[in-house]
């Protein structure tokens, strides 16, 4: 069962004709879900997005930033940086995007079953507490994780977007209730996510970064989970698992240089789902993914694997660079265990 909250007609975030983060992405996701579950929507529980409240948003973002973003949109829009346009409809869209994730979490908690999926834009994982950036306005996955943490839950976030989720990392840098794991390309925007970034003094080891070089295949993403994240998750003992699911590490995506195929996302989904404590405690949040056909195939592979309804014919990828990165992460975690920081 897929508990799905999709923005649909609530998407009024206009980035312009030239921008790769565009409304057509959500249509590609819709088609990918249909590929996985069939056109009739059997197996889908649709949950209407709701607007995230001010209280829910300011658990992650500063009140000043929230005020400024709302008023920038109300004034007709502008931009946060050269990558990140804001239109008149962006504030409402961002609130509903964040609220869709919250609605998914609530529905999963009520049903105690199913896989959650917040099919939303704009993406969120670059949005820092004090400022959005990198196409992101509000940090959807962080707002959901903060809501769960507020209820006493322990949240594992696995971010397989090809770009480092600097906003999510910043949001929980000092928060031991959230274990944040990111696999991403480096060097690459936003320039953060080094191996040595492992969490603040209040949450040592609660951030794990795998900055993989260009050309990395799915094998290294899988090994990162198998060789490091599985043990870290076992020690952390999450009560919820959230996936920051960008699909821009796909080899066809124009915004990065990793070499994953749709089949890799199916394999990753299997592994990350195994880290959840039970059914109804895994939710997917759409982040990047800008090549529409690849996005569709990758979503179909992910959802199909998790619901057991579809298998992609795009085989997982192997070999390539990245083993050194995993080794470096293991060294850092060993040092943390021994109480050494350098």
């Amino acid at each position, binding site marked *: 069962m897929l508990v799905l909250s999709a923005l649909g007609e609530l998407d009024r975030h206009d980035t312009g004709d030239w*921008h790769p983060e565009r409304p057509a992405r959500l249509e590609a996701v819709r088609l990918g879900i249909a590929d996985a579950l069939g056109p009739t929507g059997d197996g889908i529980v649709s949950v209407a997005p709701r607007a995230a409240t001010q209280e829910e948003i300011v658990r992650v973002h500063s009140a000043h930033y929230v005020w*400024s*973003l*709302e008023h920038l949109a109300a*004034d007709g829009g502008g931009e946060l940086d*050269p*990558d990140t346009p804001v239109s008149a409809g962006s504030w409402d869209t961002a609130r509903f995007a964040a609220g869709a994730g919250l609605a998914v979490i609530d529905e999963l908690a009520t049903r105690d079953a199913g896989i959650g999926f917040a099919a939303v834009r704009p993406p969120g994982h670059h949005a820092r507490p004090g400022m959005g950036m990198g196409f992101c306005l509000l940090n959807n996955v962080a707002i959901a994780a903060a809501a769960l943490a507020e209820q006493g839950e322990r949240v594992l976030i696995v971010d397989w977007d090809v770009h480092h989720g600097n906003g999510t990392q910043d949001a929980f840098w000092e928060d031991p209730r959230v274990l944040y794991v990111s696999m991403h390309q480096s060097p690459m*925007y936003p*320039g953060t996510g080094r191996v040595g970034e492992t969490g603040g003094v209040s949450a040592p080891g609660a951030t794990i970064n795998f900055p993989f070089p260009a050309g990395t295949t799915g094998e290294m993403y899988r090994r990162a989970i198998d060789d490091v994240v599985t043990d870290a998750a076992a020690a952390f003992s999450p009560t919820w698992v959230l996936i920051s699911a960008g699909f821009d590490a796909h080899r066809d995506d124009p915004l990065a*240089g990793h070499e994953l195929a749709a089949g890799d996302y199916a394999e990753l989904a299997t592994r990350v789902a195994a880290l959840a404590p039970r059914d109804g405690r895994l939710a997917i949040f759409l982040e990047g993914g800008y090549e529409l056909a690849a996005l569709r195939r990758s979503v179909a592979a992910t959802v199909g694997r998790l619901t057991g309804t579809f298998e992609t014919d795009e085989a997982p990828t192997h070999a390539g660079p990245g083993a050194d990165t995993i080794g470096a992460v293991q060294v850092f975690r060993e040092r943390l265990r021994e109480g050494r920081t350098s």
Partner: protein
Amino acid sequence: MIVRTIVVGVDGSENAQRALDWAVTLAEPSGARVVAVHALGLLDRLEHEHVPTASHRDEILDEFRSTWCAALDAAACADERVVVDGTPADVILGAAIEHDADIIVVGERGSGGGPARDLGSTSRRVLEGAGRPVLVVPQEQSA
């Protein structure tokens, strides 16, 4: 007061070109070094087109070093041309710290409007975070 290092933000725009010209104007008589910095976002502009930086990285580096920083070629000052992944304000502020800049020079973006629009203003964010002198070069006013 001795000015040894000037960090200037360069993005290929006309206004950034004016900022670079001002940096050179300050550097030449004082013997200061100019550190020209470009922030690589997710997207960039080449030939008036938005392009993904991931697949155009080398072209952007070439354009930055040879065209956007051309004013430095004829300048009588030492220079360094640096490209860093990130947003413009973060990259410029980071470069100022790394290079121990005595002054930062940036172009003013012309978005105008009320206080909410300051949210996206690189020059405003640099001014607020610099902790050192900042020269903000306005856009050229049409007659």
